[in-house]
């Protein structure tokens, strides 16, 4: 695993994904475009952990800008065979107690599933995005990997809370994260549309988890949620548009990679970016640029903003009846290395399971190979359900 990480401190207990900044440590977000970029400050989540006495163990490699499945398309290392996520695997083998990662399109959730560890993508606005190498500002959020719900809660108590340096940070100074709320009497919904898209192994995971919940006195019911596909498309449109815009600053002028051969400023831009970005990022840029164009804006971007509102309302209505939603994390329980030209479609296909929390800002917890989504600020409900099931095993 050493080629997946850059060690910061042997004594460290927390790994940090390379989409988050640690002062002075080269931060590339898996991209050649950011080669040699050393940030002048640390991400707020990192600073808060350090102030609380934690030491950062390593920077863990991510797929370029965190846009792929689990980190397979990084400029820093090439994966073959079964895919694994760098931070998740350090948590799984006990090298670190916890890891921080940015969830923009489900990559850390899928990585957690592969390693059998837990990952929480918190409610939007609860953890500062200061120091995140940003792609899709409206839905990305810093989350936490740990082996258990308790491990996640411990880190969340430190990193969550208002930060004046992030305009999207919510005003609450701190949040409570409990893992021992009674599970009995809770109501959990399984989304049929998502279950149907999963293979047998993924389905079996969900069913086993549902049984474990039932054993704790939880009511589990299958429901239909018609907007899963629309939500995935809407998030793809918003996510690619925002990413296209946010990575446009990587132009070879100020820092990072600059092409050697150019005669004009346009050549400098084109050659640097052609060399610096991988195929998946380029596909995201093209797609995002297209949906923002004058002729497409209304039908694509604007409509996606409306889908976001409708989806938020629908999820709220659902959470009036259920405490949590149980879904597969992906269509499969394992991924093999594949050709990058297939990446854009492959990631989209998997994002149908993960898009809703990014789109509407609700929390999502991956634990025991399944995903639990909850109402905004209901992390404690999700963590307590997961903790109850963990104790079962």
């Amino acid at each position, binding site marked *: 695993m050493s080629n997946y990480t850059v060690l910061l401190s042997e004594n460290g207990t927390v790994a940090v994904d390379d989409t988050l900044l640690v002062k002075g440590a080269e931060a590339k977000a898996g991209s050649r475009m950011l080669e040699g970029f050393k940030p002048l400050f640390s991400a707020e989540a990192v600073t808060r952990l350090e102030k609380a006495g934690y030491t950062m163990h390593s920077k863990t490699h991510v797929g370029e800008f965190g846009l792929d499945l689990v980190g397979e398309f990084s400029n820093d290392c090439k994966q073959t065979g079964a895919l694994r996520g760098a931070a998740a695997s350090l948590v799984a083998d006990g090298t670190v107690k916890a890891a921080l990662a940015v969830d923009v399109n489900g990559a850390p959730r899928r990585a957690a599933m592969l390693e059998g560890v837990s990952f929480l993508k918190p409610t939007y606005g609860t953890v500062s995005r*200061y120091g995140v190498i940003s792609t899709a500002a409206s839905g990305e959020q810093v989350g936490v990997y740990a082996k258990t719900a308790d491990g996640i809660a411990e880190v969340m108590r430190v990193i969550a809370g208002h930060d004046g340096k992030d305009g999207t940070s919510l005003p609450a100074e701190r949040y409570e994260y409990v893992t021992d709320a009674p599970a009995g009497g809770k109501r959990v919904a399984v989304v049929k549309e998502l279950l149907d898209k999963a293979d047998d192994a993924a389905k079996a995971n969900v069913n086993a988890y549902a049984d474990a919940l039932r054993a704790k006195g939880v009511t589990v019911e299958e429901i239909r949620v018609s907007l899963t596909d629309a939500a995935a498309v809407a998030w793809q449109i918003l996510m690619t548009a925002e990413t296209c815009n946010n990575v446009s600053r990587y132009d070879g002028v100020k820092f990072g990679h600059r092409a050697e051969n150019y005669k004009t400023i346009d050549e400098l831009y084109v050659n640097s970016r052609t060399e610096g970005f991988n195929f998946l990022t380029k596909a995201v840029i093209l797609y995002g640029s297209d949906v923002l164009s004058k002729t497409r804006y209304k039908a694509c971007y604007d409509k996606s903003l409306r889908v976001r509102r409708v989806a938020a309302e629908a999820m709220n209505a659902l959470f009036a009846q259920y405490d949590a939603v149980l879904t597969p994390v992906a269509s499969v329980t394992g991924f093999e290395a594949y050709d990058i030209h297939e990446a854009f479609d492959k990631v989209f296909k998997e994002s149908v399971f993960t898009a809703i929390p990014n789109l509407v800002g609700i929390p999502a917890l991956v634990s025991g190979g399944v995903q639990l989504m909850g109402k905004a600020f209901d992390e404690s409900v999700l963590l307590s359900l997961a903790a109850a099931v963990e104790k079962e095993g």
Partner: protein
Amino acid sequence: MKYELVIGLETHVELSTESKIFCSCGGHAAADEPNDCVCPACCGMPGMLPVMNKRVVELAVTAGLMLNCHINRYTTFDKKNYYYPDLPCAYQITQLNHPICTDGCVTVKTSEGSRDIRIKQIHMEEDAGKLVHEGNSSYVDFNRTSVPLIEIVTQPDFRSAEEVVTYLAKLRSMFRSGGISECQEGAMRCDVNISVRPEGSEEFGVRTEIKNMSSFEAIERAIRYEAQRHMDALEFELEELVQETRRFDEVSGKTFAMRNKETEADYRYFPDANLMPIIIDDEWLEQIKANKPVAVDEKAEDYRAAGIVEKDIATLLSDHKISRLLDDTVALGCDAKTAASWILTDCAGILRKDGKSFDDLVVTPEKLATIIKMVEDGTINRGAGKKVLIAVVEQDVDPVAFCKEQGLDRKVDTAMIDEVIDRVIAENPKAVEDFRGGKAKALQALFGACMRELKGAGDPAMIKEKLEAKLA
């Protein structure tokens, strides 16, 4: 045929804030060297997020109130995408869908009469940086990136170059006196939209836009040139007018079409997810209104009524700091005309002598009012007042203490002190005898009596010396 000129303006004004619009860097005026005034945020480094400077909102609202605009209580930011090396993020944060102010109106008075110019909108945005070209290399200077601007967009309501220049002069004077912008060289930049149509026609002619001019003189010349070009084109059919962007060349006095990008640029505007919508509630709006300086026109009337001459009114209205000093001094109970003369004649004279300008003036309204009152109530004469003012302006002394030290206070002039000492000697024969008889303590009693009579005025050492001399 007679033609009518139709002009609309887009005016960018740099705001006078202590820091940039989305980071805490000082304004670019504070910078000496290129990239002196930059931080990771205004250099576009990843990880930094824009944080709204509330002062920008307040100044934009104040400008909107001055131009009789509707203030939108819900206002949002959008990103405008384009690549240029002076734009570090490759997008500019601006306002497209929900600008802060809309639907205003301002009256301009020219030799042809007065006309109402409708303001379409005012929006907030960030400025871009600057490129410096040297030989084969180009350098970027980000000092100016993220400096706050407002853009004021009018309807096509101007009918002459004179109206345009009058409008701009009015904006400049309003913004200076309102503390919104210093409007120094280059801080006010204009894009002029111009078309020409036969008089009486309701339809607009083909419109051209002349970009990025900052001197009033250039704007006036550019409009006259461009209007003539349009009229000639219509009259003689020499050339076909096309909708395009042009630039004005100050040397030749002509406008030239700018290199046309094949198609009109698509800036791919979309909402900025990093900045939450700004809500201006009643309380905040009232607070801004309460702090809004009196409108220039009203203020001019007040000064006129106080008997201040036109020339001085013009100076006062063009300098927020000076009109503020005057207003505050008047608020402390001084006569406006008198105070204006102290500021505009005396202070100005002292500064000029020292090779300084009003920018360097440090006198507080309290100190100025103290000096004026001392002259008014006869404590000191006008000449002494001037001396005190010089000391205040140059060394920032306390005027009352300074008068006493220097013996400027008429109540402590030598003659008066002599008179008091003589009287004390005459009234205390016993003590005088005792002193002359060798009792040193008696001198102390006489000195105390003098001091009581003088009520603390005058230099004690000097009084003691005089007393001893008279007793000897």
